């Protein structure tokens, strides 16, 4: 009668070591433990909150700082395009088709003689608008869903995760192509399509973080005080999820810009005569034998801006002391 069935060793919730904390395991036994993991980005208990000394740490990363300054300037230029650029980006000058850069036209003129610099600045407006719309919309949708999925768990979590699986199995660009194809070509629709593409990633990120936080004793402490779930989510979970989400949002912004350019390149974005970087690239591509240098300008703008977003993402990650999983 003294025999212990050792076949169940793996399910023995009371390990032989004297580690008292393992006691908490018996709580988890009842829970659906599928996919429960603690992301490395959770704040450790010894950690000073990420916003304390944030600037000091961010400033130290010169590359990220330069990227941030570049982006601020770009956004300002896009917002104040009218005041900044004297030329109208849509005025044609067929006498100066494919003109090389000059003092009057810094980036030269395109195949219809339009000022490329003006088009880049006005195009930045549209490209950034669409990317911002995509990221903001994805966040607005994904944050509550991720919080609910992670905190409530159970079948709610299952349903949400299967839906996001279903979205994620389709290659991002193909999906965006289909959606904006259905919605019709416009900047807003591109943003909308990209939001749908990005949302599942955000949901997963938030959910993972929440699952990690949910197991923390301070959540149990809040419950023992008598806090309602909504209070706990708002006051205890949200700020613990914020840091990795901010980093992820910055990186995603870069992806959105690239995706917007791709869709515009294929003609699904903003319609002529207005320009976005993608449509400019597309037009320049048609002229590749006559004026190959025209490709470099929107291409360079896209590359530099995407790079800037990624560098800022890196800088934020270091400054916030978080580690995100790959996008």
């Amino acid at each position, binding site marked *: *009668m*003294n025999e*212990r*069935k050792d076949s*169940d060793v793996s*399910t*023995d*919730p*009371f*390990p*032989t*070591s*004297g*580690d*008292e*904390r*393992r*006691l*908490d395991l*018996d*709580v988890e*036994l*009842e829970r*659906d433990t599928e996919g429960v993991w603690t992301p490395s980005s959770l*704040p*450790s*208990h*010894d*950690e*000073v*909150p*990420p916003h*304390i000394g944030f600037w000091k740490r961010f400033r130290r990363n010169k590359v990220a700082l330069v990227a941030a300054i570049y982006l601020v300037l770009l956004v300002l230029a896009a917002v104040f395009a009218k005041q900044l650029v004297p030329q109208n980006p849509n005025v044609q000058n067929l006498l100066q088709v494919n003109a090389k850069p000059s003092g009057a036209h810094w980036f030269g003129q395109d195949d219809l003689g339009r000022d490329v610099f003006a088009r880049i600045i006005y195009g930045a407006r549209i490209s950034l608008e669409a990317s911002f719309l995509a990221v903001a919309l994805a966040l607005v949708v994904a944050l509550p869903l991720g919080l609910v999925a992670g905190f409530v768990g159970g079948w709610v979590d299952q349903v949400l995760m299967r839906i996001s699986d279903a979205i994620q199995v389709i290659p991002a660009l193909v999906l965006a192509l289909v959606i904006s194809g259905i919605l019709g070509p416009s900047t807003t629709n591109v943003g909308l399509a990209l939001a749908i593409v990005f949302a599942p990633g955000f949901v997963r990120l938030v959910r993972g973080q929440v699952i990690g936080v949910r197991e*923390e*004793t*301070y959540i*149990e*402490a*809040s*419950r*023992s*005080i*008598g*806090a*309602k779930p909504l*209070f706990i989510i708002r*006051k*205890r979970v949200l*700020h*613990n999820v914020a840091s990795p989400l901010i980093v992820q949002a910055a990186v995603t912004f870069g992806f959105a810009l690239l995706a917007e350019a791709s869709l515009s390149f294929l003609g699904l974005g903003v319609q002529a005569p207005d320009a976005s970087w993608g449509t400019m690239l597309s037009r320049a591509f048609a002229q590749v034998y006559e004026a190959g240098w025209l490709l470099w300008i929107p291409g360079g703008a896209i590359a530099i801006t995407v790079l800037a977003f990624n560098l800022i993402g890196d800088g934020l990650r270091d400054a916030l002391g978080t580690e995100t999983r790959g996008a």
Partner: protein
Amino acid sequence: MSDATEVTGVTDGTDGTGPSGATPLLRVRGLRKIFPVRKGVLRRTVAHVRAVDGVDFDVGTGEILGLVGESGSGKSTTGRLILRLIEPTEGSVELDGKDVRALGGEQLRKARRDMQMVFQDPYSSLDPLATVADVVGEPFQVHFKMSRKERDKKVVELLEQVGLGSHHLRRFPAAFSGGQRQRIAVARALALEPKLIIADEPVSALDMSTQSQVVNLLLDLQQRLGVAFLFIAHDLSIVHHASSRIAVMYLGALVEVGDAEEIYTRPRHPYTEALLSAIPVPDPQVERDRERIVLRGDPPSPLNPPSGCRYHTRCNYAMDICSVEDPQPTPTTSGGTVACHLHTSGPTLNGRPLSELGSVQTIPVRPSTTS
């Protein structure tokens, strides 16, 4: 140490009828928690863990009851069951005569004002991204409408209660040592002026020097504010220092309940005796010469607890009956209860201390550690 011995109205730990008939602050009867063990894709229940298996005890108003036992004995689970942080499978929990288990969501939330918890690990029980003002003020935020200013004033008062200054208000947990963090956790538990605080190993994550500080703080609060404590620990010497009564738990069940001093000096249950023997004596001479009772092996798995008395597989006194019949609680001569066949069958002790067993059987004798 000895000042903790005087007990008012020793509510008997098991039969439920206290001598005075007054209702205790906390009354736990037949508390049981069985966790299903699920396996496979279908989450089929393949086994049950009897984490807490029929526990009865009372905590009087303003009393400190120590709950001791090894890792995995179910003592932390018991604490959480009382607060309903984990839903009990069976049994009743009454606080001030009100059945806690019958409370619905909103009522339960309100009832939690009366019982609070201090957790084992002060490193994980405080939100690392919340200031002290937020952490200690959380109960006010949850239960009352209060301006931030009022809340901060209250928090400062609470911090003073636990010996921390008001300049800590805007600091984050990372700025504090383990002992200070536990003080913050205690301040949070005190915020709603609870009648009962369940302290789940409040000092085992702290180093020796801070342990006594925190224990003394709890004792001080008990005396000044009249808060009752359920003091959960695995270290019998700390519990002895802190509590007036002690309940000893083994594998989900209470084996002995009684006056702290009695249990510490004259244990009735072989398991209590073994636990006592594990306390090192701070005198190297005595420590070297004394004979310790070394428990063989690990506690049996609660997945498959031994038949009869759960302790019989490791007991030095085990008799034939022990593997067959589960011993029922018997009153001890000092007013507690003990669940062991030694007191009812074979060499009958009838509630007398184990040390009086000497003539009946050869047993390892623990030299008195209290001079």
